[in-house]
């Protein structure tokens, strides 16, 4: 039983400072087989260097190019000794002078690669990525807290659903505003030339005063006849600089990548640090000058014949947005009244089932929700464009499990109003909130972080309040505060610990690649057959 301990590993990546030990047989061999490892009659790596090896004679294949130490196995029969002169070759068509089970120490597994494509994790990015999971767990906890509050009649169901709906409405407005911006960016990408031609000149005059006075909405509305609806919508959302940043985006709109705009826009939107505002300002000014040049060029160029095509774009855009808004409101009203109608039925749905079963069932359903949730943060398809991420097929399972859990939990509640409130709240938490969360993460890291902190605080505080004495008369802010602190601590420890654990487990990673793996063909002129 001989270990191929002298394996040559041609390409060990330098990703790890600490080199892996050579893949020896002793690491993989069953324990029972190790017993005779020290057996002197077996092949051992040091055999390759034994001074008793017979002198090497140049055979026809021994070109002397390769001076690797080769393993010569001693054999008492002089016949075989005389035959073992040629160097072993890893070829099948050569009549080897070695037996078939000969294992050449120099060439055996020489093309083995271990962990060639491993990308080591960094701690802080890992922590940042795991906040997605934390957000979802926290929102589930908040839902449970709300249920317990309603169930113990410590919280009015109307207030829960009222605040929830208000937050949802705010979120929807924000989301809608973002969507409008995205649409305009994509429209701006397509209708780049006309836009810069038509709008760029106007903005050149308007820009300096608008920058100094960022709340000067009305003048902009006149300057932007085809963006009235978006500007008005964003001004209703109590964000004074929204209109300016919208137009600001239009100024950048010739650039292909939407992500930098967002950062600029966020930076300029944030009123607190003025130093952030300044670079955005100077940048946009230079952009506008570029625009003016391009617009003048394109006005003279024959490409401006594409004009009519692009005239349609900006006009139709607000219409689609408005249509979408109307349909959203319609479906919201539909869901509202359906739930209202269903609530009496839901109330008595599981009357014959004992509460214990309901608690167990909802626990498992929520666990399914957490484990099967689509944490990949599937970016909306119209942003990711051609690179459509494949939807996880179990993501709908997650949502369905959560709604089922909320249904069975709601059926424990005594009154129709409570049932209605909890179900509506669950739709908001499990149906709409994840969409908003993934969007917020996609938009800006800042929103994501803020949302995470809010959720952790909310969940911690809620749990603290719920665990307190139900008969306490005053508002248990102390418990809530303690819950927040503990919640923050627990989540920090959990996230940090899990990230650290995952990084620590990387040393067990052992991917093996070799010539037996199917090659990955490199095809340049891929045309239409890259569907698999």
């Amino acid at each position, binding site marked *: *039983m001989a270990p191929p301990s002298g394996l040559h590993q041609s390409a060990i990546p330098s990703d790890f400072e600490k080199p892996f030990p050579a893949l020896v047989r002793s690491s993989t061999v*069953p324990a029972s087989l190790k017993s005779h490892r020290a057996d002197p009659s077996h*092949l051992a790596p040091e055999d390759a260097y034994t001074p008793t090896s017979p002198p090497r004679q140049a055979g026809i294949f021994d070109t002397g190019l390769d001076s690797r130490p080769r393993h010569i196995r001693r*054999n008492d029969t002089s016949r075989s000794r005389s035959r073992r002169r040629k160097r072993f070759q890893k*070829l099948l068509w050569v009549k080897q002078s070695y037996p*078939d089970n000969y294992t050449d120490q120099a060439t055996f597994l020489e093309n083995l690669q271990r962990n060639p494509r491993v990308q080591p994790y960094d701690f802080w990015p890992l922590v940042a990525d795991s906040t997605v999971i934390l957000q979802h767990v926290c929102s589930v906890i908040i839902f449970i807290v709300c249920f317990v509050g309603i169930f113990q009649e410590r919280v009015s169901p109307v207030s829960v659903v009222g605040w929830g709906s208000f937050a949802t409405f705010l979120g929807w407005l924000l989301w809608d505003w973002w969507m409008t911006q995205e649409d305009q960016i994509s429209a701006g990408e397509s209708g780049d030339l006309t836009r810069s031609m038509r709008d760029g000149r106007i903005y050149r005059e308007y820009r300096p005063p608008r920058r100094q006075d960022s709340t000067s909405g009305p003048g902009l509305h006149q300057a932007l006849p085809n963006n009235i609806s978006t500007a008005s919508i964003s001004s209703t959302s109590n964000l004074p600089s929204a209109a300016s940043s919208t137009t600001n985006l239009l100024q950048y709109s010739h650039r292909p990548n939407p992500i930098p705009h967002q950062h600029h826009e966020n930076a300029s939107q944030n009123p607190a640090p003025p130093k952030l505002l300044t670079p955005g300002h100077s940048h946009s000014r230079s952009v506008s000058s570029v625009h003016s040049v391009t617009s003048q060029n394109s006005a003279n160029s024959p490409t401006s014949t594409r004009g009519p095509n692009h005239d349609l774009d900006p006009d139709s855009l607000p219409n689609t947005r408005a249509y979408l808004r109307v349909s959203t409101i319609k479906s919201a009203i539909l869901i509202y009244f359906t739930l209202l109608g269903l609530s009496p039925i839901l109330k008595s749905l599981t009357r014959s089932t004992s509460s214990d079963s309901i608690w167990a069932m909802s626990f498992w359903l929520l666990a399914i929700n957490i484990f099967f949730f689509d944490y990949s943060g599937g970016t909306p398809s119209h942003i990711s464009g051609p690179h459509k991420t494949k939807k996880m097929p179990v993501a709908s399972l997650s949502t369905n499990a959560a709604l089922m859990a909320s249904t069975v939990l709601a059926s424990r509640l005594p009154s129709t109003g409570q049932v209605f409130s909890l179900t509506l709240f669950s739709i908001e938490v499990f149906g709409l909130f994840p969409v908003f969360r993934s969007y917020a993460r996609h938009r800006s890291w800042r929103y994501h972080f803020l949302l995470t902190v809010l959720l952790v605080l909310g969940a911690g505080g809620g749990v603290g309040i719920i665990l307190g004495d139900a008969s306490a008369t005053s508002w248990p802010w102390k418990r809530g505060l303690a819950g927040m602190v503990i919640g923050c601590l627990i989540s920090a420890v959990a996230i940090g610990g899990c990230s650290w654990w995952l990084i620590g487990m990387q040393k067990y990673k052992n991917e093996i690649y070799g010539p*037996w793996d199917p*090659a*990955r063909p490199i095809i340049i002129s891929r045309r239409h057959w890259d569907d698999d």
Partner: protein
Amino acid sequence: MAPTYNIAMVSDFFYPQPGGVESHIYQLSTKLMDRGHKVIIITHAYEGRTGVRYLTNGLKVYHVPFLVIFRSATFPTVFSFFPIFRNIVLRERIDIVHGHASLSNFCHEAILHARTMGLRTVFTDHSLFGFADAASILTNKLLKFTLSDVDHVICVSHTCKENTVLRASLDPLMVSVIPNAVVAENFKPLSPSENPSYPPPARPLTPHNIITIVVISRLFYNKGTDLLTAAIPRILENHPNTRFIIAGSGPKSIDLEQMIEQNVLQDRVEMLGPIRHEEVRDVMVRGHIYLHPSLTEAFGTVIVEAASCGLYVVCTQVGGIPEVLPSHMTVFAKPEEDDLVAATGRAIASMRANKVRTELFHEQVREMYSWENVAVRTERVYNGICGAISEGEFYGYYEGGGANNSNSWSATRGRSGVQSFALIDRLKRYYGCGIWAGKLFCLCVIVDYLLFLFLELWFPREGIDVCPDWPRKKRKDSRE
């Protein structure tokens, strides 16, 4: 007088289904019978073929009725094959059970039961597996289970050996490399006496002669059909007097047809569709160059066949392919579109320059690969595991130092260098397969042993007829 053995070849894959493993088993069995051994084949029942059959040379085939689940692999029931297997083995007085193909459930079960019954076992691996995807991990675990207690393993190429050693955590010394072979008589180049309708490869080739490039493969992703589809238009564009003949079928054939339509290459690319193995030679001799764009290949019998037909071979450098043919017969390419086009260009150029002596290829290939040679080398494996040749000679240890030699056998490998049959030794070997898997495998082995005892009681050996042997051939003197 070397000993002769009663050998049972066990695999899910055998005729009437065509394929590489099938013909390997058949050819090896035939040549082993020529060397005086008795060989039977155990496979599952194919449609319209159940029970015992004799092939023309006296090769006996048992078609055992069994549930087939996927691509003629049987349903893995660990124990249900045992009663009928024991019956066959006792009837035929089998000494060695030789299983083929790692996706064959029959083979794995047979090796397990044969070890329980105290028989020597050999396993031949024909394919390469990765380590990454879930299916491979499962297959590798099962392979580890079976091969924990096998006497010897045969692989068809050195790459395959490395793969199998890693997959099943084997001692490299108990893995032999014995390549496939071709029946060179069936793959002769076009002789002048034949007068086919198409012109024979005229030589010397001038720039105006048309060079025909032949591709014969199943048109699957892992056969590199994507590479082929991308490369053909560029090759034809670069080299005016060339044309392609493509034989084979598969899901990727539609891509090829689309490529032909798009580039209007109907008169330069001929697609023959699926062809039978007997017709392969007739297609091959129509060409000058054989193009093999496969992405993974354990051995690549088809390129040996092509070289035997006198074709210059262009192939991707993957798997075991670089080991198969000498460099003067092949042009290697990386599995990239550019490199494949460049390599084909080099091959066409050297064909036009008449640098390649393709007319000598057939004789050379005949010298390299023959099934007689494979049978001789397989026989050495049988001798080694049965103790007919000493441990030192078989495993290549030095036997000098008598004091050491007396201790040189271990608990698991017996005094003569063969694996011990004692149940406790077998359990030790299985136990090392993994924390959970080891215990599970031990449980399976114990159940198998109990089943064996039960069968011995219920169907005693005396009650099983011994079937008369087909008259054995006189053993020819081994030349090697």
